[in-house]
């Protein structure tokens, strides 16, 4: 705690502590694979790359700003009603995200359906508020929020990359830069009818089902823990 307070003075050139706050959640303290928070949405929205990128941005926004707001108010919130206060702030931010998406990107909004609303109950948001923002100054809480949002986003993007590639043979479908990568068809990125690269591949529809996300997440955890042995069996 005292170390964190020391770095309070130097605001902009990032201190080592602040860099740690920002980058630790990417691997050593990843919210999904190590803290086991926010699994539900990590599984449900990852069948394609585009919705999971949107989701990652939305969650990062909500975590960062709710951390900031709660951290500013942390000395004035009575202990007994803190849950309600936190939930009201989160719900407010999520409503902003939902209305923005509905206005500017309706197809993605439709695809994400209830999962935008479920950011409110995404345990990452609540967990970081309780574990970090209630005890630390605003700037650090903000960085912690961004870091955890990125850590969550990176897992989402890895899972959805594999699911979309093997499940549909495309990447980024639904955007102008949609790429077809594998499978047999002439409108692919590499013309796979004349050129036999990956032309033999037929889409594996298991990857589209949500169960595939669980297997992939299990394998990511397996890989991460075999590289980073100090994480083994802490859950």
């Amino acid at each position, binding site marked *: 705690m005292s170390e964190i307070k020391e770095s309070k003075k130097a605001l902009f050139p990032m201190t080592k502590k602040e860099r740690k706050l920002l980058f630790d959640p990417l691997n050593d303290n990843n919210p999904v694979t190590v803290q086991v928070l926010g699994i539900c949405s990590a599984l449900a929205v990852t069948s394609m790359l585009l919705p999971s990128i949107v989701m990652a941005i939305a969650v990062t926004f909500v975590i960062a700003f709710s951390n900031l707001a709660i951290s500013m108010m942390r000395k004035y919130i009575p202990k007994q009603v803190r849950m309600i206060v936190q939930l009201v702030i989160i719900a407010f931010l999520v409503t902003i995200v939902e209305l923005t998406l509905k206005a500017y990107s309706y197809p993605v909004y439709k695809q994400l359906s209830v999962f935008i609303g479920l950011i409110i109950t995404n345990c990452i948001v609540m967990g970081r508020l309780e574990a970090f923002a209630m005890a630390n100054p605003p700037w650090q809480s903000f960085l912690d929020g961004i870091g955890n949002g990125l850590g969550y986003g990176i897992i989402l993007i890895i899972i959805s990359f594999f699911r979309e590639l093997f499940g549909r043979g495309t990447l980024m479908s639904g955007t102008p830069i949609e790429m077809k990568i594998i499978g047999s068809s002439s409108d692919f990125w590499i013309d796979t009818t004349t050129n036999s690269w990956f032309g033999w591949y037929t889409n594996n529809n298991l990857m589209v089902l949500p169960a595939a996300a669980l297997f992939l997440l299990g394998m990511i955890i*397996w890989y991460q823990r075999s590289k980073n042995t100090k994480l083994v069996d802490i859950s």
Partner: protein
Amino acid sequence: MEEFLSIFIKSAFVENLVLSYFLGMCSYLAVSKTVKTASGLGLAVIFVLGITVPINWLINRYLLSENGILGMDLTFLRFILFIAVIASMVQLVEMVVEKVSPALYNSLGIFLPLITVNCAILGASLFMISREYNFSESVAFGLGGGFGWFLAIVAMAAIREKLKYSDIPAPLRGLGIAFIITGLMGMAFMGMMGIDPAIFFSGK
């Protein structure tokens, strides 16, 4: 009655909140280490879901919709009101459990208040809205969804109790294997939807 039963069965098995929609995963993974605590939390979830879904239906119909009491379209307040109902119901359950069974209360620990942020609870209310259920259907959906969650967490806890004795690679132990088992269970539950083999092998 027939309608009631069919929605109950459908929401408990076919559209199981945990194994088909992957809602409420955090507490599902964290509390499923022993059957006893798992069934305690499962019962609490049945109770909370069975009450909050109908209450939220009433709030949505008579308070928030355009032809409700206030005569205004207040659906943007939905999240805040739903969460408030859920938080107060959970507070109630917590007090009851503390009085009736202090042992269970201690073993559930932090996860009892965390039912508030269990996505299955809010998710069920939002599904109830998006599927346009009527009141009796929403009662059936709440109870059925809760029952499905209970079944899933008890099954998972039973498997994990046995898993202690199996020889699993060290990095996969604990969380990793729990995810893979949940995936397998999810696929088994999907069988109840009736899988069309053509979906798997069509290669569209």
